[in-house]
Protein backbone atom coordinates (compact mmCIF):
# COMPACT_ATOMS: atom_id res chain seq x y z
CA UNK A 1 0.00 0.00 0.00
CA UNK A 2 1.34 3.39 -0.93
CA UNK A 3 1.26 5.30 2.31
CA UNK A 4 0.65 8.92 1.42
CA UNK A 5 -1.57 10.17 -1.35
CA UNK A 6 0.47 11.79 -4.14
CA UNK A 7 -2.16 14.50 -4.28
CA UNK A 8 -1.57 15.56 -0.69
CA UNK A 9 0.91 18.26 0.24
CA UNK A 10 3.44 17.90 2.99
CA UNK A 11 3.41 20.94 5.28
CA UNK A 12 6.92 21.84 6.37
CA UNK A 13 6.26 24.71 8.78
CA UNK A 14 3.70 27.34 9.68
CA UNK A 15 4.33 31.07 9.62
CA UNK A 16 1.40 32.47 11.56
CA UNK A 17 -1.75 30.98 10.00
CA UNK A 18 -0.07 30.35 6.63
CA UNK A 19 1.16 26.79 6.04
CA UNK A 20 4.27 26.38 3.90
CA UNK A 21 4.29 23.16 1.91
CA UNK A 22 7.37 21.39 0.63
CA UNK A 23 6.70 22.23 -3.03
CA UNK A 24 6.64 25.96 -2.35
CA UNK A 25 9.86 25.88 -0.34
CA UNK A 26 11.58 23.84 -3.08
CA UNK A 27 10.36 26.32 -5.68
CA UNK A 28 11.79 29.20 -3.67
CA UNK A 29 15.11 27.42 -3.30
CA UNK A 30 15.29 26.83 -7.07
CA UNK A 31 14.36 30.46 -7.77
CA UNK A 32 17.01 31.68 -5.34
CA UNK A 33 19.64 29.38 -6.86
CA UNK A 34 18.84 30.48 -10.42
CA UNK A 35 18.88 34.15 -9.44
CA UNK A 36 22.16 33.73 -7.59
CA UNK A 37 23.87 31.95 -10.49
CA UNK A 38 22.66 34.56 -12.99
CA UNK A 39 23.73 37.39 -10.72
CA UNK A 40 27.14 35.89 -10.04
CA UNK A 41 27.70 35.11 -13.71
CA UNK A 42 26.68 38.53 -14.99
CA UNK A 43 28.01 40.67 -12.14
CA UNK A 44 31.04 41.73 -14.17
CA UNK A 45 29.80 40.90 -17.64
CA UNK A 46 32.18 41.80 -20.41
CA UNK A 47 33.41 40.88 -23.85
CA UNK A 48 36.09 38.66 -22.34
CA UNK A 49 33.62 36.38 -20.61
CA UNK A 50 34.44 34.28 -17.60
CA UNK A 51 33.43 30.65 -17.20
CA UNK A 52 29.98 31.19 -15.74
CA UNK A 53 29.13 33.94 -18.21
CA UNK A 54 30.16 31.74 -21.13
CA UNK A 55 27.97 28.89 -19.90
CA UNK A 56 25.02 31.25 -19.43
CA UNK A 57 25.54 32.67 -22.92
CA UNK A 58 25.59 29.17 -24.44
CA UNK A 59 22.36 28.27 -22.64
CA UNK A 60 20.62 31.46 -23.72
CA UNK A 61 21.78 31.10 -27.33
CA UNK A 62 20.59 27.50 -27.49
CA UNK A 63 17.14 28.35 -26.14
CA UNK A 64 16.95 31.38 -28.45
CA UNK A 65 17.70 29.16 -31.45
CA UNK A 66 15.04 26.64 -30.43
CA UNK A 67 12.39 29.30 -29.79
CA UNK A 68 13.30 31.19 -32.94
CA UNK A 69 12.83 28.11 -35.11
CA UNK A 70 9.35 27.59 -33.69
CA UNK A 71 8.11 31.16 -33.61
CA UNK A 72 9.66 32.02 -36.95
CA UNK A 73 10.24 35.67 -36.23
CA UNK A 74 12.31 37.73 -33.83
CA UNK A 75 12.21 35.56 -30.71
CA UNK A 76 13.79 37.97 -28.22
CA UNK A 77 10.48 39.42 -26.89
CA UNK A 78 9.37 35.91 -25.92
CA UNK A 79 12.71 34.61 -24.77
CA UNK A 80 12.67 35.85 -21.16
CA UNK A 81 9.43 34.03 -20.43
CA UNK A 82 10.10 30.82 -22.37
CA UNK A 83 13.73 30.56 -21.35
CA UNK A 84 12.96 31.05 -17.68
CA UNK A 85 10.19 28.48 -17.98
CA UNK A 86 12.56 25.96 -19.53
CA UNK A 87 15.39 26.42 -17.05
CA UNK A 88 13.04 26.44 -14.07
CA UNK A 89 11.27 23.31 -15.30
CA UNK A 90 14.54 21.45 -15.79
CA UNK A 91 15.69 22.37 -12.29
CA UNK A 92 12.28 21.51 -10.81
CA UNK A 93 11.96 18.16 -12.60
CA UNK A 94 15.50 17.17 -11.68
CA UNK A 95 15.06 18.09 -8.02
CA UNK A 96 14.29 14.43 -7.37
CA UNK A 97 17.91 13.60 -8.21
CA UNK A 98 19.08 15.43 -5.10
CA UNK A 99 18.46 13.18 -2.09
CA UNK A 100 15.77 14.52 0.19
CA UNK A 101 14.17 16.80 -2.36
CA UNK A 102 10.90 16.26 -4.19
CA UNK A 103 10.11 17.83 -7.54
CA UNK A 104 7.56 20.62 -7.01
CA UNK A 105 6.09 19.80 -10.42
CA UNK A 106 4.91 16.48 -8.99
CA UNK A 107 2.04 18.21 -7.17
CA UNK A 108 -1.02 19.77 -8.73
CA UNK A 109 -0.33 23.37 -7.82
CA UNK A 110 2.97 24.13 -9.57
CA UNK A 111 2.00 22.74 -13.02
CA UNK A 112 -1.37 24.49 -12.68
CA UNK A 113 0.28 27.83 -12.05
CA UNK A 114 2.77 27.32 -14.90
CA UNK A 115 -0.03 26.37 -17.30
CA UNK A 116 -2.01 29.42 -16.20
CA UNK A 117 1.05 31.58 -16.86
CA UNK A 118 1.28 30.15 -20.37
CA UNK A 119 -2.47 30.70 -20.87
CA UNK A 120 -2.31 34.38 -19.93
CA UNK A 121 0.97 35.10 -21.70
CA UNK A 122 -0.42 33.66 -24.96
CA UNK A 123 -3.23 36.22 -24.85
CA UNK A 124 -0.88 38.98 -23.74
CA UNK A 125 1.58 38.38 -26.58
CA UNK A 126 -1.23 37.88 -29.08
CA UNK A 127 -3.01 41.10 -28.19
CA UNK A 128 0.24 43.03 -28.04
CA UNK A 129 1.33 41.96 -31.50
CA UNK A 130 -2.01 42.05 -33.35
CA UNK A 131 -4.26 44.40 -31.41
CA UNK A 132 -7.38 43.39 -29.52
CA UNK A 133 -9.72 43.16 -32.54
CA UNK A 134 -7.27 41.31 -34.70
CA UNK A 135 -6.60 38.86 -31.91
CA UNK A 136 -10.27 38.23 -31.13
CA UNK A 137 -10.99 37.76 -34.82
CA UNK A 138 -8.64 34.76 -34.67
CA UNK A 139 -11.36 32.83 -32.85
CA UNK A 140 -13.77 33.18 -35.76
CA UNK A 141 -11.27 31.68 -38.20
CA UNK A 142 -11.78 29.78 -40.43
CA UNK A 143 -15.53 29.90 -39.81
CA UNK A 144 -17.59 31.71 -37.13
CA UNK A 145 -19.37 28.41 -36.48
CA UNK A 146 -16.15 27.14 -34.91
CA UNK A 147 -16.12 29.86 -32.25
CA UNK A 148 -17.23 27.58 -29.37
CA UNK A 149 -14.70 24.94 -30.32
CA UNK A 150 -11.90 27.48 -30.55
CA UNK A 151 -12.75 28.85 -27.10
CA UNK A 152 -13.02 25.32 -25.72
CA UNK A 153 -9.64 24.37 -27.13
CA UNK A 154 -8.05 27.23 -25.17
CA UNK A 155 -9.26 25.64 -21.94
CA UNK A 156 -8.50 22.04 -22.83
CA UNK A 157 -5.01 22.66 -24.11
CA UNK A 158 -4.10 24.57 -20.97
CA UNK A 159 -5.54 21.76 -18.88
CA UNK A 160 -3.66 19.11 -20.83
CA UNK A 161 -0.45 21.12 -20.49
CA UNK A 162 -0.89 20.97 -16.74
CA UNK A 163 -1.94 17.33 -16.60
CA UNK A 164 0.88 16.16 -18.86
CA UNK A 165 3.62 17.65 -16.71
CA UNK A 166 1.95 16.61 -13.45
CA UNK A 167 1.14 13.10 -14.61
CA UNK A 168 4.61 12.35 -15.91
CA UNK A 169 6.53 13.61 -12.91
CA UNK A 170 4.12 12.33 -10.28
CA UNK A 171 3.68 8.91 -11.88
CA UNK A 172 7.43 8.54 -12.14
CA UNK A 173 7.79 9.29 -8.43
CA UNK A 174 5.13 6.66 -7.73
CA UNK A 175 6.88 4.09 -9.91
CA UNK A 176 10.17 4.69 -8.08
CA UNK A 177 8.39 4.32 -4.77
CA UNK A 178 6.78 1.04 -5.80
CA UNK A 179 10.07 -0.35 -7.11
CA UNK A 180 11.91 0.59 -3.92
CA UNK A 181 9.16 -1.13 -1.99
CA UNK A 182 9.52 -4.29 -4.10
CA UNK A 183 13.20 -4.60 -4.88
CA UNK A 184 15.42 -2.68 -2.51
CA UNK A 185 18.92 -1.60 -3.36
CA UNK A 186 20.34 -1.35 -6.89
CA UNK A 187 17.25 -2.09 -8.97
CA UNK A 188 15.73 1.43 -8.90
CA UNK A 189 18.85 3.09 -10.39
CA UNK A 190 18.00 2.50 -14.10
CA UNK A 191 14.52 3.84 -13.43
CA UNK A 192 16.02 6.92 -11.82
CA UNK A 193 18.14 7.43 -14.94
CA UNK A 194 14.95 7.12 -16.96
CA UNK A 195 13.48 9.73 -14.62
CA UNK A 196 16.23 12.21 -15.50
CA UNK A 197 15.40 11.73 -19.18
CA UNK A 198 11.67 12.10 -18.53
CA UNK A 199 12.26 15.29 -16.57
CA UNK A 200 14.33 16.91 -19.33
CA UNK A 201 11.95 15.77 -22.08
CA UNK A 202 8.92 17.06 -20.22
CA UNK A 203 10.58 20.43 -19.64
CA UNK A 204 11.42 20.53 -23.36
CA UNK A 205 7.88 19.57 -24.38
CA UNK A 206 6.30 22.10 -22.03
CA UNK A 207 8.48 24.88 -23.42
CA UNK A 208 8.00 23.83 -27.04
CA UNK A 209 4.23 23.66 -26.62
CA UNK A 210 4.17 27.08 -24.94
CA UNK A 211 6.22 28.42 -27.84
CA UNK A 212 3.86 26.78 -30.35
CA UNK A 213 0.83 28.33 -28.65
CA UNK A 214 2.48 31.75 -28.58
CA UNK A 215 3.51 31.36 -32.21
CA UNK A 216 -0.06 30.49 -33.17
CA UNK A 217 -1.38 33.54 -31.31
CA UNK A 218 1.23 35.89 -32.73
CA UNK A 219 1.75 34.67 -36.27
CA UNK A 220 -1.56 33.73 -37.83
CA UNK A 221 -1.92 37.21 -39.31
CA UNK A 222 0.58 36.25 -41.98
CA UNK A 223 -1.15 32.94 -42.67
CA UNK A 224 -4.52 34.47 -43.47
Amino acid at each position, binding site marked *: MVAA*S*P*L*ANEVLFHLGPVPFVRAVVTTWAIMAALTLVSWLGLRRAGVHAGTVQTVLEIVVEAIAKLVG*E*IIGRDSWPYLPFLGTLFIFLICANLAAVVPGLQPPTGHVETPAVLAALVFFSVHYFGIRSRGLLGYVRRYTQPNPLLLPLNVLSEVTRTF*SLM*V*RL*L*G*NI*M*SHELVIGIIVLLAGLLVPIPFMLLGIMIGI*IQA*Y*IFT*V*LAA*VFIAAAVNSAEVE
Partner: protein
Amino acid sequence: MTIEMLSIIGAVVAVSFGAIGPAFSEGRAIAAAMEAIARQPESAGPLSRTLFVGLAMIETMAIYCLVIALLLLFANPFVG
Protein backbone atom coordinates in the same frame (compact mmCIF):
# COMPACT_ATOMS: atom_id res chain seq x y z
CA MET B 1 -18.43 -5.31 -3.38
CA THR B 2 -17.70 -2.11 -1.57
CA ILE B 3 -17.07 1.21 -3.24
CA GLU B 4 -13.35 0.88 -2.48
CA MET B 5 -13.01 -2.43 -4.28
CA LEU B 6 -14.96 -1.11 -7.24
CA SER B 7 -12.70 1.96 -7.37
CA ILE B 8 -9.56 -0.17 -7.42
CA ILE B 9 -10.97 -2.29 -10.24
CA GLY B 10 -11.99 0.87 -12.06
CA ALA B 11 -8.50 2.33 -11.69
CA VAL B 12 -6.87 -0.82 -13.02
CA VAL B 13 -9.23 -0.98 -15.99
CA ALA B 14 -8.74 2.72 -16.74
CA VAL B 15 -4.94 2.52 -16.82
CA SER B 16 -4.66 -0.81 -18.62
CA PHE B 17 -7.16 -0.14 -21.36
CA GLY B 18 -6.29 3.54 -21.57
CA ALA B 19 -2.67 2.67 -22.31
CA ILE B 20 -3.46 0.49 -25.33
CA GLY B 21 -4.52 3.18 -27.76
CA PRO B 22 -1.70 5.64 -27.04
CA ALA B 23 0.85 2.81 -27.17
CA PHE B 24 -0.25 1.76 -30.64
CA SER B 25 -0.44 5.30 -31.95
CA GLU B 26 2.92 6.28 -30.49
CA GLY B 27 4.45 3.26 -32.17
CA ARG B 28 2.96 4.25 -35.50
CA ALA B 29 4.08 7.86 -35.11
CA ILE B 30 7.66 6.85 -34.28
CA ALA B 31 7.72 4.38 -37.16
CA ALA B 32 6.57 7.06 -39.58
CA ALA B 33 9.14 9.51 -38.26
CA MET B 34 11.91 6.91 -38.55
CA GLU B 35 10.95 6.27 -42.15
CA ALA B 36 10.96 9.97 -42.93
CA ILE B 37 14.34 10.49 -41.25
CA ALA B 38 15.77 7.50 -43.14
CA ARG B 39 14.63 9.04 -46.40
CA GLN B 40 15.71 12.57 -45.62
CA PRO B 41 18.36 12.62 -42.89
CA GLU B 42 18.87 16.36 -43.34
CA SER B 43 15.36 17.10 -42.05
CA ALA B 44 15.89 15.20 -38.80
CA GLY B 45 15.79 18.36 -36.67
CA PRO B 46 12.31 19.69 -37.49
CA LEU B 47 10.98 16.14 -37.80
CA SER B 48 12.08 15.13 -34.33
CA ARG B 49 10.71 18.33 -32.85
CA THR B 50 7.34 17.73 -34.46
CA LEU B 51 7.56 14.12 -33.35
CA PHE B 52 8.15 15.13 -29.75
CA VAL B 53 5.21 17.52 -29.75
CA GLY B 54 2.98 14.91 -31.38
CA LEU B 55 4.06 12.24 -28.94
CA ALA B 56 3.29 14.59 -26.08
CA MET B 57 -0.18 15.13 -27.49
CA ILE B 58 -0.78 11.39 -27.84
CA GLU B 59 0.65 10.65 -24.46
CA THR B 60 -1.80 13.04 -22.88
CA MET B 61 -4.56 10.49 -23.46
CA ALA B 62 -2.72 7.91 -21.36
CA ILE B 63 -1.99 10.51 -18.73
CA TYR B 64 -5.68 11.38 -18.55
CA CYS B 65 -6.41 7.75 -17.75
CA LEU B 66 -3.70 7.80 -15.10
CA VAL B 67 -5.23 10.90 -13.55
CA ILE B 68 -8.64 9.23 -13.49
CA ALA B 69 -7.07 6.19 -11.81
CA LEU B 70 -5.29 8.33 -9.22
CA LEU B 71 -8.48 10.25 -8.54
CA LEU B 72 -10.29 6.95 -8.00
CA LEU B 73 -7.58 5.71 -5.66
CA PHE B 74 -6.69 8.79 -3.66
CA ALA B 75 -9.39 11.43 -4.10
CA ASN B 76 -12.51 9.37 -4.61
CA PRO B 77 -15.56 11.61 -4.13
CA PHE B 78 -17.80 8.64 -3.21
CA VAL B 79 -15.64 7.33 -0.38
CA GLY B 80 -16.25 9.20 2.86
